[in-house]
């Protein structure tokens, strides 16, 4: 029997597989298809203080081995998430959930994180400072070490649960930003959010996505994500949740060898609603094949010296 459990800042998961924010709603759609309690956890839809419509459509474009999205943080706002979504979520998911929080000011991050921190069933707070699809918010906090550190400090001051800062790959030195978050008290680092990209419709001679640019995800970004997890592992001591194009149990192991303690699965859920379940089920077999007894033994295992 292999051991798939991992621990994120004191929070033990039965396995490292976590559907990523924005690809799993608040869990209900997937709970209609399978028992989502087989998952290590899941990261719910990025939540802000106010309800948001998000960007005008079209918001989606296909790419080679992936997709672009410019949803723009559509969500019902923290009041409704607490009063309606979380009670529904608790009925279908009985493990601690990852609360993904985004914002447009430091005050907003602190207020929302402080409120979600008090909610039963929230195991970890993932602070999204990396949404590429909104203006004057999201990514603007994740592209400078000073701003990332400021958000981290403000959130840490009002929370008791582990705080993981979710970083953008659209930066020159992701290790410097990760270090700034760690120094400011972050309990862990989550990476990567999507890579900014675009497509142009040849017939209309105009961008496919109304927002012009969108975030690239899917297998196309996996090598970039892996490289950044590798770099951040060398730069910080806190645990890492690795993500970006993960689509198989082998990808999970590769991410962990690069330095991830847990792994999020994103776009794959949108193409195959059973993707995360299949990865959880395949993981023990792949571990046996690779002679891995304890998954925690391989975290950062590809770094030598």
């Amino acid at each position, binding site marked *: 029997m292999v051991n798939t459990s991992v621990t994120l800042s004191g929070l033990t998961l039965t396995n490292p597989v976590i559907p990523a924010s924005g*690809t799993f709603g608040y869990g209900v759609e997937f709970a209609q298809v399978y028992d989502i309690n087989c998952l290590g956890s899941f990261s719910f839809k990025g939540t802000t203080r106010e309800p948001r419509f998000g960007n005008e*459509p079209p918001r*989606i474009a296909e790419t080679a081995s992936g*997709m672009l999205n410019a*949803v723009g943080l559509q969500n019902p706002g923290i009041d409704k998430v607490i009063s309606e979504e979380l009670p529904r979520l608790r009925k279908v998911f009985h493990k601690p959930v990852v609360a993904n929080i985004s914002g447009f000011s430091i005050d907003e991050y602190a207020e929302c994180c402080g409120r979600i921190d008090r909610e039963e069933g929230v195991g970890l707070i993932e602070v999204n400072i990396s949404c590429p699809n909104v203006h004057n918010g999201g990514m603007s906090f994740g592209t400078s070490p000073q701003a990332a550190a400021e958000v981290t400090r403000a959130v840490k001051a009002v929370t008791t649960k582990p705080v993981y800062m979710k970083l953008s790959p659209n930066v020159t030195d992701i290790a410097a930003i990760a270090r700034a978050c760690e120094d400011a008290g972050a309990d862990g680092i989550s990476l990567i959010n999507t890579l900014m990209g675009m497509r142009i419709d040849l017939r209309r001679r105009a961008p496919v996505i109304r927002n012009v640019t969108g975030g690239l995800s899917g297998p196309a970004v996996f090598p970039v994500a892996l490289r950044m997890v590798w770099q951040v592992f060398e730069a910080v001591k806190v645990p890492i949740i690795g993500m970006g194009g993960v689509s198989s149990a082998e990808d999970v192991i590769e991410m962990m060898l690069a330095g991830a303690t847990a792994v999020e699965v994103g776009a794959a859920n*949108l193409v195959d609603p*059973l993707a995360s379940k299949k990865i959880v089920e395949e993981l023990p077999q792949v571990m046996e094949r690779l002679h891995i007894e304890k998954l925690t033994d391989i975290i950062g295992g590809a770094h030598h010296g």
Partner: protein
Amino acid sequence: MFDGRFEVVSNRPIAKNTFEMVLSGDTEGIRPGQFVDLRLEGFYLRRPISVCDFAPGRLTLIYKVVGRGTARMAELAPGAVIDVLTGLGNGYDTAPSGDGPLLIGGGAGVPPLYALAKALLAEGKRPTVILGFNARDEVFYEEEFKALGLEVLVTTADGSYGIRGFVTDAMDLSYTYFYACGPEPMLKAVYAKSVTSGQFSLEERMGCGFGACMGCTCKTKTGHKRVCKDGPVFRKEELPW
């Protein structure tokens, strides 16, 4: 939502750039007005296609070749097996239709009205069908609707077949209710001319097709709705047009 394996039985052109694909597989739980989501080899996202007709073990889709994905679909030969999510979307509500509803379809919006027509007939109702196309070579399913015993009016924008003009030029206002599916300008014209309540089937670029990604959200009078999950069918009163 159901995840099934379907086998292509036939796949033939029925009008300009328009194909009819018949598949065999589990169709349990499918309702008129819903759509299916096809996974195609070599393409990352699925292709959402409205359900034209269904029977136990048999599914009919009609699609227009508009890009590389639908071009790939047109190449699928009988015997090909594809991964299909079925039972997606809310579907039409036949309860408020009255005895003589209008079914108004434009181009690639025609197919879902076929399964709806059969469901209304099964309830003892007598729909009238208006099918709008750009030109004669794009016309399809006129005979299929007529074979159900229904009155069918065809319009073409260039006047090369049937009534010259748009679907609204064929709208007689003595109907009891309406169901419309087609391009947005057509839907808005129907909305403006309609004198009763009705239902509109909307289209939007989708990511997942089952309500998870928020890629296809639209604004309604009752809030933000996902075209794939809360729709694709919306009541006239919900739309902010």
